[in-house]
């Protein structure tokens, strides 16, 4: 292993987050408590857990979209805020959040415009990113003229435009149908292999987490904690056949059992079973 693969991109130590309720009736919610996690360069980390376990909150804390109540968040050796100001993040949300009034090409150019890159460079970089997500033919379309999966691919292209140190993805395929979702998983892996970027990925789906990740972080609710980290020792290159490997199913079972074992909101066993079957 070379140095670049071993160094730490994200270091969370003793992170907690409390949402203070406003007014008399509003309750104080302890969203996250005692989170320690370190992510190495090039890793693909999935955060999984029941609703309300704070996985999206944790992702937003890493991206400095919200602050911590306690603890420290270091990204690339800097505080999260400094990393954000240095534009080290690429964000992808559950919705594509593309700007209607811009073409797909100009949407991908947006971050480059914000940091003031010259027009020619912007256009070239956006074309390159669109080619990467296989949307080259749709550069001139407006987002609302594309399907949901294509829109999400454009959002990924935009997130990659600044060549971020870390890609933060908040249930990016949660709104897509199962078939599109599986195809997007494959494409995301292909992009990840080619760009060698570090990814933190929030998901509800156990098979998706296992299929994509190098490690799956299992969380429990109220307060949100990390209950277990499951290393995914599948071959690094994954494809359709990975989904039929026995070890893949064993890992799904392992994640499922750690989820069931986690305190807090119970996971509906029927849903987990269905997801396991569809995988």
């Amino acid at each position, binding site marked *: 292993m070379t140095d670049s693969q071993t160094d730490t991109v994200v270091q969370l130590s003793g992170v907690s987050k409390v949402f203070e309720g406003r007014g008399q009736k509003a309750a104080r919610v302890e969203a996250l408590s005692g989170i320690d996690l370190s992510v190495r360069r090039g890793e693909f980390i999935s955060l999984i857990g029941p609703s309300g376990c704070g996985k999206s909150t944790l992702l*937003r804390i890493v*991206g400095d*979209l919200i602050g911590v109540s306690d603890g420290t968040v270091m990204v690339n050796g800097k505080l999260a805020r400094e990393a*954000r*100001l*240095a*534009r080290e*993040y*690429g*964000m992808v*949300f559950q*919705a594509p*959040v593309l*700007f*209607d*009034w*811009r*073409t797909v090409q100009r949407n991908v150019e*947006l*971050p480059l*415009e*914000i*940091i003031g890159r010259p027009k020619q460079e912007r256009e070239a970089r956006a074309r390159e990113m669109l080619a990467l997500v296989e949307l080259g033919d749709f550069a001139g379309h*407006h987002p*609302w003229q594309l399907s949901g999966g294509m829109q999400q691919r454009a959002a990924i292209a935009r997130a990659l435009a*600044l060549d971020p140190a870390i890609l*933060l993805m908040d249930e990016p395929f949660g709104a897509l149908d199962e078939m599109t979702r599986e195809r997007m998983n494959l494409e995301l892996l292909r992009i990840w292999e080619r760009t060698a970027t570090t990814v933190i990925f929030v998901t509800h789906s156990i098979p998706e987490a296992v299929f994509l990740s190098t490690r799956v972080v299992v969380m429990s609710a109220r307060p949100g904690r990390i209950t277990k980290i499951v290393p995914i020792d599948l071959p690094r290159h994954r494809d359709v056949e990975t989904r039929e490997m026995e070890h893949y199913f064993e890992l799904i079972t392992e994640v499922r059992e750690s989820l069931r074992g986690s305190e807090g909101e119970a996971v509906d066993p029927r849903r987990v079973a269905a997801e396991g079957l569809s995988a």
Partner: protein
Amino acid sequence: MSTRRRLRPALGFLLIVAILLVGWEAAKLLAGDPWRFPDYGFYWDPPLRWKPVNDLNLPHLWTIFGAFWELDAKGETYLSSLIGAAFFTARESALGFALGTGVGLGLAIVLIHVKVLERGLVPLLVASQTVPIIAIAPVVVVGLRAGWFGVAIVATYLTFFPVTIAAIRGMRSADPRAFELMRSYAAGRRTVLRKLRLPASPPYLFTAFKIAATASVVGAIVGEFPAGIRDGLGGALLQAMQYYSFSPQDLWAAIAACAALGIVAFLLVVTAERIALRGYRPTEDGARA
């Protein structure tokens, strides 16, 4: 888009105007004054009597239409003097619209960034709009020495408010995650304004522009009253009001000219909207257009 689909709204408009005109004469036929047209040998006594539709209140359409062709002392037709007046008033209301849009947008940008001001100022703005324009007009017009510029300021007064309200709404309309996205790019307030808030607002702004366009015409007409300006539609209305008791058709003709100017202003905004919103997600309304 086919020509036929583009013409359909215009045909609908003409149809409704035709229905209204026919209704106008039908009411007179049923309950108006007796019809006496010796030239055509036509005499008719309506079976009912209803005062509001007598010849003084609702002159016959052809009488109103005929008023357009009457000559004044200078030998000019009433129609051409009304057209001249409409251009004069259009200039006032166009300036009022432009200033009102600028003031309205500027105000909205300030209010959106300074929360304290929003809480303190918006009630005052609302209050400003409840004061009848007729009460404000003399203050403005006399204060600015009764020029057409003063009249434009009255139009501005009527124009800015809907623009402010719509702009505030529009600049807050984007997905909260779009603001998170901008934050993740460490974009400053000005960049967020330029790249997200302002471009997100036109679908809301144009609704306000439609209201503002007609309001600016009203403001310009009303502003001409205290200014004593005779060159515009306001002046034409005042003059026609004075002669109403023996020549009501002049007032109706002047009213028609005001209405036409209002419609033109509105249509200009609709056309601009169609061009400006081309790149935006079509709405039910836009899909039809």
